[in-house]
């Protein structure tokens, strides 16, 4: 299982990821800059700059969900793409390893090496379904053909062959039912550290076997999942483990790093495993989606998810950690909060390394993690899931002064469930918070910026493919008809998206993914603007906290719009097939 089809690449130019941070406290809102410098074969270099806080988008089987390559390339919101490698384990050796040439991962998947940071993890961070246990030297991964054992040697080989810009070290997260014994947690810490060390061993850059600085390079920028589960002491222990100075053989192995942390480019926290009680093992596309509500668990459990949320107006239960960031859940008074877990991991560690969190569930959660901890990168899985179920997100940060906010006003939804029959004749654009393309008489401002996604600001294609010499006439004449033509077209309407969703058209989700990513991008742009507007850090923190409160008051945190959309999506899915119009018209009112 350790061969890869391509010859081991020599002369690898390792792109270098650096992170610079504006000064600030260890825990609190912060802006920074991730910079990936890439050397091309001709030894010229170019850099990708990602201001933080920012987000990454995950792929499904190597593709950004619902977006064809041209749409990925045109989406300005997308800068960092994470690729879970496990789907490729269906074939031995994994098919991407056949890709030759520079930046094989980018090229196999069609990403732009001048624009996109591409990271490689073994597992999908959003998949917390139960898995067979890992071993001392292997991780259980999931692909369409079942579970595959991936050894640390395999992983190292895949990373070196695919040359991602960022690689996630293997980590030993138990995907079996909680609670876990002290022994299991200890093993998790030790294995994760050992596997990190393995990835940090330098690799030979030339065919010369002897070790020297010049012919050995350290692996690509490595991110580590912070082990320790839901135990603050375990987390503290792991962080100490990776910062303690190594000696002897351990030190030799990762020379010239003196401790593991010196080779770490960033810290990752996967909330998925913390939230859910894992369910019985299953393959297929239920993985990661079906959960049971935890009972009597001694660790902090997520009580709701997008998949199983009861309809709104039922008894209020905390969603994610949103309302319980600073206090434990009432029934489990000894369990740590997420806040405490993150701080336990981060306390012993250098401040100026990027912090990444996956499986955030709402803009509220994102804002609070920025405010209280100082998280730099979030994943966009939840906005893609919202697009999957027909919700166009619509929120803006900071909340404009024109928005009515406060105890007397009801919350806005964070988006629009376009399945709702009220949108059947609604010819406005997808968002109220933003303006669609410049085909309007309002000028964009910081209060009402433009959403530049393909749904809100479609652009006339400038160079359609010409299939014959005669085609010149058809294209030219169309644009020479005397009408002064703006490059932007009218925004796609809620009525059209409503129609696409009810007719089960795939393009609905194309529009919604592109749009939702743009809205998330705008949120984080707004965050960066607010934080960096104040030179004095205390002032920045205070103002930011104020804006977060305004946001919480303005937008419904229970995200009931997502719950009803999920119901509607299920209805359309169930109604499909012969006779569906009769089934659907029986259900919808006012048709």
């Amino acid at each position: 299982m350790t061969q890869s089809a391509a010859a081991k690449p020599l002369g690898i130019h390792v792109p270098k990821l650096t992170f610079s941070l504006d000064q600030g406290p260890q825990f609190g809102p912060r802006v920074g800059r991730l910079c990936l410098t890439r050397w091309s074969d001709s030894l010229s270099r170019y850099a990708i700059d990602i201001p933080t806080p920012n987000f990454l988008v995950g792929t499904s089987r190597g593709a950004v969900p619902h977006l064809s390559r041209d749409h990925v390339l045109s989406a300005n919101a997308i800068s960092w793409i994470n690729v879970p490698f496990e789907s490729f384990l269906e074939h031995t050796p994994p098919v991407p390893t056949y890709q030759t040439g520079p930046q094989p991962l980018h090229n196999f998947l069609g990403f732009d090496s001048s624009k996109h940071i591409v990271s490689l993890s073994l597992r999908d961070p959003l998949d917390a379904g139960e898995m067979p246990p890992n071993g001392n030297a292997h991780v259980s991964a999931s692909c369409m053909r079942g579970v595959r054992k991936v050894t640390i040697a395999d992983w190292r080989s895949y990373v070196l062959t695919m040359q991602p810009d960022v690689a996630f070290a293997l980590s030993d997260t138990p995907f079996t039912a909680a609670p876990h014994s002290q022994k299991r947690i200890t093993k998790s810490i030790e294995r994760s550290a050992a596997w990190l060390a393995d990835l940090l061993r330098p690799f030979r850059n030339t065919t010369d076997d002897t070790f020297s600085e010049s012919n050995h390079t350290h692996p690509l920028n490595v991110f580590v999942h912070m082990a320790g589960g839901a135990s603050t002491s375990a987390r503290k222990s792991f962080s100490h483990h990776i910062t303690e100075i190594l000696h002897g053989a351990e030190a030799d192995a990762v020379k010239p790093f003196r401790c593991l942390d010196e080779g770490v480019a960033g810290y990752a926290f996967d909330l998925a495993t913390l939230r859910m009680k894992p369910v019985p093992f299953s393959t297929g596309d239920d993985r990661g989606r079906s959960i049971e509500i935890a009972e009597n668990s001694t660790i902090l459990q997520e009580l709701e998810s997008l998949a199983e949320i009861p309809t709104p107006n039922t008894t209020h239960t905390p969603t994610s950690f949103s309302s319980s960031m600073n206090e434990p859940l009432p029934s489990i008074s000894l369990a740590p909060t997420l806040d405490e877990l993150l701080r336990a991991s981060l306390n012993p560690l250098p401040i100026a390394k990027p912090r990444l969190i996956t499986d955030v569930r709402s803009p509220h959660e994102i804002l609070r993690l920025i405010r209280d901890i100082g998280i730099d990168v979030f994943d966009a899985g939840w906005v893609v899931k919202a697009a999957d179920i027909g919700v166009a997100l619509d929120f803006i940060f900071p909340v404009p002064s024109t928005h009515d906010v406060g105890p007397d006003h009801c919350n806005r939804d964070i988006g629009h469930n376009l399945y709702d029959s009220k949108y059947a004749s609604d010819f406005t654009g997808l968002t109220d918070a933003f303006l669609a393309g410049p085909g309007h008489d309002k000028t964009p401002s910081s209060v009402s910026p433009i959403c530049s996604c393909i749904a809100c600001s479609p652009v006339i294609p400038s160079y359609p493919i010409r299939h014959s010499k005669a085609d010149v006439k058809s294209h030219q004449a169309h644009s020479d008809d005397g009408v002064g033509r703006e490059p932007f077209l009218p925004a796609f309407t809620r009525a059209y998206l409503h129609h696409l969703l009810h007719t089960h058209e795939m393009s609905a989700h194309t529009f919604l993914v592109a749009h939702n990513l743009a809205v998330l991008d705008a949120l984080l742009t707004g965050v960066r603007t607010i934080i960096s507007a104040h030179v004095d850090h205390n002032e920045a923190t205070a103002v930011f906290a104020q804006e977060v409160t305004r946001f919480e008051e303005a937008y419904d945190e229970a995200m009931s719009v997502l719950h009803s959309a999920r119901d509607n999506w299920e209805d359309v899915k169930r109604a499909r097939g012969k006779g569906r119009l009769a089934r659907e018209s029986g259900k919808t009112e006012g048709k």
Partner: protein
Amino acid sequence: MQFEVIAKCRTTRARVCRMELAHGITMLPTFMPVATQAAIKGLTPQQVESLGITLILNNTYHLNLRPGIKVLDEAGGAHKFQGWNRNILTDSGGFQLVSLSKFANITEEGALFASPFNGQPTMLTPEESLSIQHSIGADIIMQLDDVVSSLTVGPRVSEAMHRSVRWLDRCIEQHEKSGRKDRQNLFAIVQGGLDPTLRDQCLDAMIARKDRVAGYAIGGLSGGEEKGNIKQCADRLPSDRPRYSMGVGFAEDLLVCVALGVDMADCVFPTRTARFGVALTFKGPLNLKLGKHTTSMEPIDKDCPCPTCASGMSRAMLHHVVTIETAGAHAVTIHNLVFQAQVMGGARDAILEGRFPEYLRAFFRDYFGDAGYPEWCVNALRSVDVDLMEGVNVPLIRGSGAKWEYSDAA
């Protein structure tokens, strides 16, 4: 409509035409992708336009059901509703009516069918069909015809043909008094089944109405065996009107129709087969689901200008995502649409440059190779003085001869 024949093949009946409609110029011959429910499945209108497509088809039956006329009227028509600013053709709704309804009873008044919403008997008359098409606002609209399967025999065929002529008159009336003749162009549909006599009668009647129709569709024929009937129609129909062969999508079929004098065709085939994982190429179709493509780092076609191939998307990557990820469906759909357009664009260039017979021969040689040519293609092309078999030593295949990539063993 402004319609002009700008070149003719000296050997076959093929021609290149320029057709200018309310939403721009479409060069003929062309293939029309089908945007059944106001969308080419999986793609945005901007994507479709960027592929060089200028004319798509919308289905009246489907749009009438969802979103419905009220919404379309409020939106200002189907162009605005779906964000497509180039040309649209709508069919009459008659075909889906018959094929998709629980029951359909054709009377002189119109077609009585079961509403798919509540099962109630509903009537679609020629006037109603036109009225719906007026709301949709397509640049080309079709008469409601009494369509029978080409396998039907007996008096029903004749009845349907004559009724189609009467319904054409009703459609013409409805269209002329709508005041939309300047923006929307009505096509007649020639019927008559496989019976040349009936076809001739239908042609007589419909050609007599030439000044009140903008173009002619050849209806009730969408299989390989009926090319004799297509030729009969194409030979007699006025050359200053576009000819539209409904439901033709296989590349070899399109080219044979072009050689017979047809200017446009539509079909769901290329887009549907794309979603099922089959990419169309000049060397035949590729079934990307097969194991033989698992590790191929080649694109579908390195000379193809489509965004999928131009980005170098490998067959291996496509194999990994087709039929599983929507992005896989989009990638192959984009490719297949460009393939169809390239076949027709190549034909236009070949006709313009006086080398269309060579284009035909090269296409068949590359596409079918040693597998052999479908007999019906050879026969149809011989009727317009192109002998595919000349100097070529390949078998003749009976039946449809459609080329397919079935399994790894093949």
